[in-house]
């Protein structure tokens, strides 16, 4: 390859400068520096040498990644893919940023991904729900077709969540229930995802904390929303009916008396009739001026009775619902931070 072509490949293939911080191994740091200085041959040599030395897991993954970058830059595609496969097997969640990394390197990385069986990016969201009425979302990616078994493990307890043949993005819903339908007991669970394809297998896990709580009960009602009781007594408007009635009845009795009096007995003075009639009319007049007594409002009484019955019925329903709610368990599932290898 001519020098110009080399330069062009490097410019196009060059990832963002590989940060050397957090790297303890000196040889690996030198390999990263060599790669940053476009000394590809030296980077490959130093990365290989670093891999023969004592490295931590992330450092090993980093060393293979440098090798993958360097081989990609030097057009050694197969070697690059092999190096990336090793990096992925050590750190399955490893990602390349397509915005910063050249397409050539990215395609090598994706090719490596398709050739290994790993479970990547296992993510479990926090969730709170009433047992049996909700679920915990679980997401992960299987890089190649495999039988995938997912279960929740806590000590000797192993609760199957799902088993299926899958590849690519997988979304599961865990209801946090035992096979008999009861909520899983309080505690820490490992969500284990095992992928098996022939002789190859891979497993990923994420710890979650399951806590139990009481389900909120409904408060009893003291009034139906939107409905208020009506006054059970109403004061009728003042009127002249009492006086009218007094006149009417006095008139009836007076007329009857006049009609029934015997003419042969002479004209009676009628002072008895007059005294009682005046008393009746006076009473009628006073009652007409007086504020009428409140009368029971039959319609309102019936309405209030219906309202009361509805309230009692609603509270009975609430009491029944609360009995059911008290038997239920509020589950809170929280993913725990991943341990660094």
């Amino acid at each position, binding site marked *: 390859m001519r020098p110009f072509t080399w330069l062009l490949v490097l410019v196009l293939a060059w990832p963002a400068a590989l940060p050397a911080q957090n790297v303890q191994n000196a040889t690996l740091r030198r390999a990263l520096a060599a790669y940053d200085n476009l000394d590809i041959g030296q980077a490959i040599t130093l990365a290989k040498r670093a891999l023969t030395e004592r490295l931590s897991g992330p450092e090993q993954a980093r060393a293979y990644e440098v090798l993958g970058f360097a081989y990609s830059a030097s057009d050694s595609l197969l070697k690059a893919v092999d190096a990336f496969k090793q990096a992925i097997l050590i750190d399955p969640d490893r990602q390349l940023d397509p915005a910063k990394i050249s397409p050539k390197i990215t395609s090598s990385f994706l090719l490596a991904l398709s050739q290994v069986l790993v479970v990547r990016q296992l993510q479990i969201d926090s969730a709170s729900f009433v047992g049996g009425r909700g679920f915990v979302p679980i997401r992960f990616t299987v890089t190649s077709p495999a039988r995938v078994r997912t279960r929740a493990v806590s000590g000797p307890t192993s609760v199957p969540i799902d088993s299926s043949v899958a590849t690519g993005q997988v979304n599961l819903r865990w209801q946090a229930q035992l096979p008999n339908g009861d909520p899983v007991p309080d505690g820490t669970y490992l969500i284990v995802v095992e992928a098996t394809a022939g002789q190859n297998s891979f497993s990923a896990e994420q710890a979650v904390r399951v806590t139990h709580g009481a389900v909120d009960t409904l408060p009893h009602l003291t009034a139906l929303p939107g409905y208020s009781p009506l006054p059970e007594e109403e004061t009728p408007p003042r009127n002249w009916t009492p006086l009218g009635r007094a006149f009417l009845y006095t008139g009836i009795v007076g007329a009857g008396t006049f009609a029934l009096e015997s003419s042969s*007995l002479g004209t009676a003075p009628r002072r*008895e009739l007059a*005294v009682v009639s005046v008393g009746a009319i006076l*009473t009628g007049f006073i009652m007409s001026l007086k504020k009428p007594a409140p009368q029971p409002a039959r319609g309102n009484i019936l309405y209030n009775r219906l309202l009361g019955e509805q309230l009692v019925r609603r509270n009975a329903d609430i009491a029944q619902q609360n009995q059911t709610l008290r038997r239920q368990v509020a589950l809170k599932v929280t993913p725990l931070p991943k341990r660094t290898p």
Partner: protein
Amino acid sequence: MNRPVVVSLALVVNAAASLAAQRVSLSVQSAFGDYREVDSNLVYRGTGIAGGATVSWHKLGADVEVTRLTYDPHGGRADSSFKSTQVDVHLRWYVANQVSLETGYTKRTTDPEFSAQSMGAIRIGARGLYNIGPGASLALRGNYLAGSKFSGGGSAGFGIELGLGISAGRSDGRFRVTGDYAFQRVNRKTTGGGDVPIQQSLARLGVSVGM
């Protein structure tokens, strides 16, 4: 006071005392009246006292009233006074719309005997009691007087009684001022075949106490 009156009063008060859901009231009244007999020359006017007891229980009600008047001659041929004792018994059955069917009897005796006609009759009629305000009520009564008997003999084919009552006081009925008017007209047929009209207007004013 004769025996039937005492027995009636005792029965009413005893029944009132023994029933739980009843209302009982006792009344004391002053009374005055006008009594006419035969023709316009036999006219008496009198005053006196009256007392009564009322009991009501669910749809049933009963009144017993005793009125004692001293009638004095008021012009004409009447020349001697007499005492009149009238006992009125009303038994009621509430029908509807404040109206009750009513029966009972009325008995008026005179002392000295035969100074005026003593009479007795069964009453059949109706009474309406209307509330015209808190603690105030008006009563309207109409009775046919049947089976009249007289101390001088004879009977009455026609006898009628009209009544107007007013009471006002506390709405719980514990204390009330009462007024009653009763007009009685009877056509007595003598054994000789003559028609003798008898007419009495009676007013009672007083108080009643409820229990």
